[in-house]
């Protein structure tokens, strides 16, 4: 097999730089690298960011390489990087010609047909809606967040909580310690119960669905179908993946915004995730809450979508800079392997559960501490006027406070209130909207600080907090004025 031979000016530059590197001896700029000198030099010629950062520590060496690049570039009639890429591409094509024999009918016809109908606008958009409806709404929402949550919850309520409560009452003489472990807000009776009964089934079904979409090759098609819509809110089709992931877990989705091209896109995506993309645990509970009132559910869904698009549009309009370009490889559609999907789902659920369980336990401990010292009573009393302004009963004040620790935690608290028939339809809708828009859970807030920096995180918090309450207030006012009762 022939080695790759680049155009003469590049080969000459490679030879000179190789010799130069060798002569540097102790002053070699990259002593830790095990790559061959030729590969190192080629990376330098292509302005590899990691190598250049290291090289720039020595001005003299830096100038040496820059001169070589300029000399080679002067003799080429196209950009140096392109010349390198083209040479490699030609080599690869030559290898392909020698090594690959293509039978007459190369692609499987069914995969080809399926591809055509998934990307054709006439058939593609209905398919997209059906996939999201079946995968996200039916499977994750109704089966995961409805059926499974109900079963595990009632198992906890019936089998575990009474045993724990009885056990702590008999063995621990101090009431504060009893409350830390059992009773209404204990680590086991609340923290672990919420994590296993609410988050676990929702997240497990969600990851199963997501892995299926991922392995079938449908996700890039989802991106290309929605690129134009996302351009409207200052994002690109690339951002579809973090957004859909946000419907599972916003914390994880905030990490994934890293894959977006520009800083501006990452900022808009993080902001929209925090404000208007409810995580599975959250919308799962909201779905359960509003299930008996389809009109209320549609109103909530429509309202949040409008906020998502409206706020996205305005952010894109006022935030300086241009939208990132969209380019994505479209792999062939494949029948997913069940084994791979199960492994992937298992690994993700395990990672997520261990990530999230300590947070729930901490939230329980925090609530316990806040209640014990009376700090929470003070905060709750401060929130009560706000909840009254939203037309909510005062009993809902703790939910907004607890929702601060975890969004889904707050939604689950709302579920408890609804079970006791304490809320009207309108109150449920207002609470669901405020909790959806509300500040993200502690874990996501930490992630925003980590990914976007303290200043941006604080700016988002300062916007989202009043915005959520104000929106709730306006919705309640509007519904009352118009005489609408859900």
């Amino acid at each position, binding site marked *: 097999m022939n080695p790759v031979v680049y155009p003469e000016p590049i080969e000459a530059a490679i030879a000179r730089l190789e010799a130069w590197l060798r002569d540097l001896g102790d002053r070699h700029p990259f002593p830790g690298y095990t790559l061959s000198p030729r590969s190192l030099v080629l990376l330098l010629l292509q302005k590899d960011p990691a190598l250049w950062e290291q090289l720039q520590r020595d001005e003299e060496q830096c100038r040496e390489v820059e001169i070589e690049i300029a000399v080679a570039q002067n003799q080429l009639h196209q950009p140096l990087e392109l010349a390198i890429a*083209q040479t490699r591409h030609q080599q690869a094509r030559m290898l392909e010609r020698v090594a690959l024999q293509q039978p007459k009918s*190369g692609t499987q016809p069914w995969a080809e047909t399926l591809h055509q109908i998934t990307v054709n606008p006439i058939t593609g958009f209905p398919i997209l809606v059906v996939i999201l409806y079946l995968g996200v709404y039916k499977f994750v929402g109704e089966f995961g967040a409805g059926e499974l949550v109900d079963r595990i919850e009632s198992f906890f309520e019936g089998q575990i909580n009474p045993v724990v409560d009885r056990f702590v009452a008999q063995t621990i003489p101090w009431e504060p310690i009893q409350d830390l472990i059992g009773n209404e807000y204990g680590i086991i009776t609340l923290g672990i119960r919420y994590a296993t009964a609410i988050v676990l089934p929702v997240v497990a079904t969600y990851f199963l669905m997501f892995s299926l979409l991922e392995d079938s090759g449908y996700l*890039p098609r989802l991106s*290309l179908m929605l*690129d134009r819509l996302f351009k409207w809110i200052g994002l690109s089709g690339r951002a579809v993946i973090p957004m859909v992931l946000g419907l599972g877990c916003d914390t994880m989705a905030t990490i994934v915004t890293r894959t977006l091209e520009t800083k501006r896109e990452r900022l808009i995506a993080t902001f929209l995730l925090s404000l208007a993309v409810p995580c599975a645990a959250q919308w799962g509970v909201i779905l359960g809450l509003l299930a008996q009132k389809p009109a209320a559910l549609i109103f909530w869904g429509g309202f949040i979508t409008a906020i998502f698009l409206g706020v996205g549009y305005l952010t894109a309009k006022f935030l300086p800079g241009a939208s990132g370009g*969209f380019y*994505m*490889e479209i792999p062939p559609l494949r029948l997913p392997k069940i084994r791979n999907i199960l492994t992937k789902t298992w690994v993700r659920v395990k990672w997520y559960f261990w990530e999230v369980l300590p947070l729930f336990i901490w939230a329980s401990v925090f609530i316990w501490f806040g209640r014990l010292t009376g700090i929470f009573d003070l905060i709750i009393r401060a929130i009560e006027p706000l909840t009254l302004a939203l037309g909510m009963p005062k009993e809902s004040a703790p939910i907004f406070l607890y929702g601060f620790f975890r969004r889904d935690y707050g939604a689950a608290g709302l579920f408890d209130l609804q079970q006791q028939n304490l809320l009207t339809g309108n109150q449920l809708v207002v609470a669901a909207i405020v909790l959806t828009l509300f500040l993200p859970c502690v874990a996501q807030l930490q992630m925003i600080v980590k990914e976007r920096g303290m200043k941006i995180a604080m700016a988002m918090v300062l916007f989202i907090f009043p915005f959520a309450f104000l929106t709730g207030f306006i919705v309640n006012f509007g519904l009352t004025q118009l005489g609408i009762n859900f």
Partner: protein
Amino acid sequence: MNVLSTIEIGQPKTIVGYHTQDATLLRKLVTLGMMPGIEIILEQRFPSYIIKLGHTRTSIDRETAESIFVQ
């Protein structure tokens, strides 16, 4: 010479050059294999441009399609 966004669907064309100064975009196009001398077929325009090149398919937006010259 035409811009990729304006060519007929289903007709094989050859990339001849770029109409952009954006270094990141250029690098990305090269990585996707869209470089001068490569034969491509435009498959659809809406909702996104889909281009077949060699054994792969790539989706790009209008702005990107407007920055590639073909013949």
